[in-house]
Structures are given as C-alpha cells and as structure tokens.
C-alpha cells in the first residue's frame, strides 16, 4: 500500500549530520478540510510532507496509521509586521536616513517570542528595524522556527525590502538644539513636516548624487535602486495624512522622472478614509491589529466595518499583529476579527497567506497548500477564523513547531 509506505516512520530521513540535525521534516498529515489558498477546498485530504516541502496532496483518503490529524489545514500565516528585535538597538539613530543598514545584526533567534509566534500559526515573518528613523534600513524575512542560525532561517526574497516611517514616531525623541547640541537627538526632524522633508531630501540627494562620488552618501545607491523598482519600499503610516504623504512621495518621484517606488504601507489604520489614494496607485496595505474602540497609534482610527469596503474595491491587504504580544491581537485572532469586519473567508485567508507572500515576491514558495511549496502549515481545531476555532498544530518548513497530538 502506497499510503502505508508514506507513513511518517518510513519517511523519516536517516540522520546523517549528527544528533542536532535529526529534526523530523517528513510527515503524513490528514485533515477533513484543506483550504489550499487557490480557491479550492479539499475534503479528507492526505498531505505528505517530505524534507520540508509538500510532496503530495491526495483528497478523498482516510487517515493512515501514524498520520497527524486535524479538522482543517491552511497554509502557514505570514506576518509582515513582526517586531522581535533588539528594540532601540535595531535601528541606528545617529542619522535619520540609513538605507544601507539592516535589522539583521539585531535579530535574536533565541528570543522566546519566536516560539510563541510559531505556535500561533505564523510561519514566516518580515522583521523590520524599529520605526524611530525616517528610513531605518532593510527588513529581513525569516521562518519562525528552525535552528538558531540566520543562514538557516532567512528566506531570500527576489528584491531586498527597505523600511521607513512617516508620522510622529520617527521624530519622537528628537528635540531642537538650543545653543550647543548635547547629543544626536538635537536634530531634525521634530515634526511630521520634518519627517516628510527628510524623505524627499533623501531621494532628491540620492538622484542628484548619482554618478558623482563626491556627493554620494551611505545609502544613496540603495535609494536609487528603490527608484528603479529593484527594492520594495515599506513605509509605516497610520493616519490619513501620513498615508497621503507616502502616496504623494511616490507620485512626486514618478512625476519628476526619478523613478517608480514599489510602495507598501504598513499600519495603514486609516486607509479606509481615502481609498482612492490606494486604488489609483495599486498600493498594498498592511493593517495593524483591529483595536477595541477603533483608536490606534498616531491618533488614527481603524473603522472595522470599512475594511470590507476596501477589500471590495480591490485594495490588496494583509493583516498583521504589528508586534503585539497579547493573545487577543495575535494574527490568528485578526483573521476572526476580519471576518467579523465583513471580509469573506477567501479574502481573510488571502490577507494572511497569499497576499503577504505576493508582497514578498515569494508566491511560488509560500502562501498556498500546493505540491512543491514549503511545508508551512497551520492545523486548526475547526473552520479557520471562526471565533471558536483555534490553531492546534503548526509546521514550519516541515518542522513540527506545535504538535497537535
């Protein structure tokens, strides 16, 4: 019997590299429903996971002996706004504009938060520097479970991802210099206006310095590559005025002939107020956690019931936990809140799987339950995103990060 041959025991790879490398990445998993993410729902499907990848998916099977069983399975969730990093040490505040730096040196894979993230069903995370700079540096995509080595956990994206912020956060902590500056917080910007000015100056300076070494500065080439569309730019902007500033920046760069920024807006709580800004540029948004009472950071108001309207207009959206650590703000719950806010099941599933995978440029690797994709799977106790359903099991690249048995 083929199914018998495919039991976990017979598939378990022979450990060749020593005791530490024996983590099992081959499994047989059976679910009553598999929500593939391609629009299909497979009933009584048996998924064979081999060496961290999905090897086969066969509907209409019964669970063979030894198989892991679940009510429902979806692809692993992808959170584009995770904050497991060294806090203030994740961003170099000596200058506002640091496009040549990365959050990477501040990543702590030993942080217990990774285990909590993985257990909550997030299998891939985009980690950004803390938003205290105007342009903080590069973000890094990581699997949430696996060895505590960056090389093993990092997921390479087709394009590097640059991160910045608009709003009050990048200027918070700065103060104007009266007399002699005492430290590097005695500087611009101290207001939203200053932040906006820094963004435009950075791009203008980068373009104007092009080809002239004497006028170049650290990060100028990264900014020019952003304008060439070779880098994805994620800007945090909570409030309408800040979202508008981000869009104006993109439009101004295009109008001046500087280039075309591929822009994603993170924490776009007030995106619902002026959806035209997003649709006319096909801008993707990442929503912060749905707040009780609607009020979020930067004075922005997230109206739950307008979310469905945005989705209906074709705005590509992703849900996120935005670094929240409390249970009610986990990404798993955000899905349930999005359903409550009126998103369809498919829109909700897409917002935590295929949409973020597309933002990262990793649609052929992540986001769906298909043969050949990474075995990033979430096992649910019932229908996903139902208020009474919960995540009971998680596989990250075939590694059982949360055992449902």
């Amino acid at each position: 019997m083929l199914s018998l041959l495919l039991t976990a025991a017979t598939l378990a790879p022979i450990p060749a590299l020593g005791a530490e490398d024996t983590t099992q990445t081959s499994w047989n998993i059976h679910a009553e429903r598999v929500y593939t993410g391609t629009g299909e729902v497979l009933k009584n499907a048996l998924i064979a996971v081999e060496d961290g990848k999905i090897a086969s998916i066969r509907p209409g099977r019964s669970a063979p002996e030894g198989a892991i069983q679940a009510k429902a399975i979806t692809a692993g969730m992808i959170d584009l706004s995770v904050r497991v990093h060294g806090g203030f040490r994740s961003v170099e505040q000596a200058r506002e504009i640091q496009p040549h730096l990365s959050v990477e040196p501040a990543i702590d894979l030993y942080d217990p938060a990774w285990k909590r993230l993985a257990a909550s069903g997030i299998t891939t995370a985009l980690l950004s520097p803390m938003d205290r700079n105007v342009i903080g540096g590069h973000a890094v995509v990581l699997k949430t479970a696996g060895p505590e080595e960056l090389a093993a956990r990092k997921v390479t994206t087709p394009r590097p991802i640059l991160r910045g912020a608009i709003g009050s956060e990048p200027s918070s902590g700065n103060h104007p210099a009266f007399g002699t500056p005492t430290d590097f917080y005695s500087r611009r910007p101290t207001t939203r206006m200053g932040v906006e000015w820094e963004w435009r100056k950075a791009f203008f300076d980068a373009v104007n310095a092009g080809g002239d070494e004497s006028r170049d500065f650290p990060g100028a080439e990264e900014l020019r590559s952003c304008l060439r569309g070779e880098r994805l730019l994620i800007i945090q902007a909570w409030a309408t005025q800040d979202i508008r500033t981000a869009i104006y920046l993109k439009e101004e760069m295009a109008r001046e002939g500087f280039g075309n920024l591929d822009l994603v807006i993170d924490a776009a709580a007030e995106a619902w107020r002026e959806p035209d800004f997003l649709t006319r540029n096909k801008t993707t948004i990442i929503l912060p956690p749905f707040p009780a009472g609607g009020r979020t950071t930067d004075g922005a108001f997230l109206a739950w019931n307008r979310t469905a309207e945005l989705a209906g207009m074709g705005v590509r959206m992703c849900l996120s936990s935005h670094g929240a650590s409390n249970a009610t703000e986990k990404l798993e719950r955000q899905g349930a809140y999005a359903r409550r806010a009126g998103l369809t099941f498919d829109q909700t599933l897409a917002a935590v799987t295929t949409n973020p995978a597309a933002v990262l440029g990793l649609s052929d690797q992540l986001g769906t339950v298909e043969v050949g994709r990474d075995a990033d799977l979430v096992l649910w106790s019932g229908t996903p995103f139902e208020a009474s359903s919960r995540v009971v099991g998680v596989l990250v690249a075939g590694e059982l990060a949360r055992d449902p048995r």
Partner: protein
Amino acid sequence: MLATTTLALAALLCGGPSAGDSFALRATRVHVGDGTVLENAIVLVKDGKIVDVGQGVAFDKDVPLIEHDGDLSAGLVALRDYAGIGAEGADSTRAVMDAADLRYAFDSDHPDMARLAESGITTVVLAPGSGSNVVAGMPVVVKPTVRVLRAKGSLHVDLSASGTSFNRYPSSYAGVLEVLEERFAAGEGAFGELKAGRMTVMLEAESRAETSRALDFASRHKLRGYLVDSQRAGELAAKVKASGLGVAVGPFAIGGDRKEVESAVSLAKAGVPIGFALDTPTNAPAMLRLSAATAMRAGLDRDAAFKALTSGAAALAGVGDKVGAVRAGMEADLVLWTGDPVDPTSRAVAVYIDGDLVHEAPETDEEDED
C-alpha cells in the same frame, strides 16, 4: 613541616638569596601543569626563571633548599580583572578607543594587587571597563605588585549591547558592525595588527545571539583570542570550537545562574580552551578558585579546571610561553599551597613572582582559623 617551610622562608627573607641568585624548592607534590604531578620533586630557580624540575634535580650545596610539605604549582592566571583601575579603565567620549593602552591604568602598588598575589594569582589581564565603547582599548597582562608582562597584545572589541550608546553613534547593533567593518577595512593601528594576526581580541558578547554574531565576525576577520561575558556560550559550543576562540568563563557567584556554570563545562567538554575571569575588586580574589570548584561540581574534571586556572588561561592571554606551568625555561611564578590548588580549602602559604617571594602566609593563620 609547614613550620619548617616558613622558617626556611624567613631565612630567605633575612639576607638569603634574592632574585638573581638560585634557590630550590622541594614540595610533596609538584603540579607541572600538563596533567602530571611529581611526588617529592625539586624546582630549581635561577635569575627568576625555572631552570630544572624533577625528582632527582642536582644543585650546588650552597643553593638554599626550601622544603614544603604540601603542593606546588605555577601561579594562577585571571583572564579579566579590574584590580586597581578604579574609574580609569574606560573613556567613553569616543566609540572606538583602539589606542587606549591599559598599561597606563596599571598601579603595581595598589592594595588590590597585593590581595591578588596573596591568593596565588600571579598573572592577570587588566581589561577596560564597559563604558559604551565599541573598542575600549588594549588590555594589559600584568604580574600583580610587580610588572607588566605583555602590553599591546590584544584589543578589546565589544559586540554586546554595552558597546552601543543611547545618544551617540553607534546606537545600534548595525552601527557597531558598521564602525568595526570600516576600521577593519582601513586597517590602521591595532586593526592592522589584528588583521595581520599580530594581536588577539578580547571579544565581548553577552546573549547567545550576540555570541553567535561575534563568532561570525571573528571568523570573517580570522580573529584569535577569547570571548568574555558570554554566559551561555556553551550552548553554541560547536560553533565556538569551530571559531578557534577561547572563552573566559565566570566568575561564578554563589547562588548564580546554573546555566552559566553548565555552559563553561560544555565548552571544556567540546575542547574549547577556557580560563576564568575574576573581576576584582567587585569580587574577592578567592573567587577565582571558587569558580573553578563550582565548575568542577557541575562536571568539569579536575585537570581541566587546573589547566583553566593556569596554562590554559596563560595561553589565551598570549603568555603561555612564559607563565602558567612549572617547566624549565618558564618564569618562576610559583605558589606553595597547603593542598591541591583546585581545592578551595587549600591556602597559598608562599607566592613567588619572577623568583621573588611576594607573599608569605603568617605563621599564625591556622591558629586564627581555629
């Protein structure tokens, strides 16, 4: 026999041979430092150096022989210490102070120095304090109360959070790496010496993530030397071993984190060279041997502990060819103990540095303790 010993030592002090002359020590057990223990062996010292060691060492009749009913070993080595430095060990006005030489913070007459010598510690690495410097200076290897043994041999490099500043560049881990990569690329001063392999590093990293990054950094620049402050390095033992770096472990405070002690044992078992940090004046000098005993209690074998206190630490400090073992040609830094030096109940009754008696336990000690 102890009485005989001290009488002989008294004779030595009162017009006996001084450095430059010869003398012989005979002890019940001589801990050579390579794992062997010689019974009733003689150590012959001339001009501050050991000239012969063994059971049948011959020497002139006029060379005084000091008999010791107990153990003899090389003086102990502490891989990081702040004795006598006070607040002079760090200048945080600039992030990189690569030219700061800890030699100028060494005060041989400071009472901290005498306390180290009294405990049988004859070599210490004086380190810059953690004052939010990425590079705080060049540690200096000294013989307490006596002299500088090795200066400008290593550079302190801090990849931990304490290397960052809250209000001065660099304020982030990325900034720390940026600063260091720039300095290595320029290759000036100590950085050029490091690149050429003529200097070693005292590499500071605390958490496992910082340690992992520090090891990557060390591999990238082919650095030699040892890690300090990395209390969980043992959990990355294979990676540390592959890096070729050693680790300064401890000091292990009483009631301290057990993981820190287990880490040290894992490192030793993985074949990583270890030694002990001491950190006086925060800790008493006795903490050095207490740390070794704590590690032994957690599974470190006796010989590994002894090596970490002597020859292993000396090698990490870059002075393994001069001190740390009782061998012909080595400098005569010797300690006479009441028992096994790794046994915390043993006491140093006489301490020699460069063949000079720098400490002798008062005869009344034992009675006082009763």
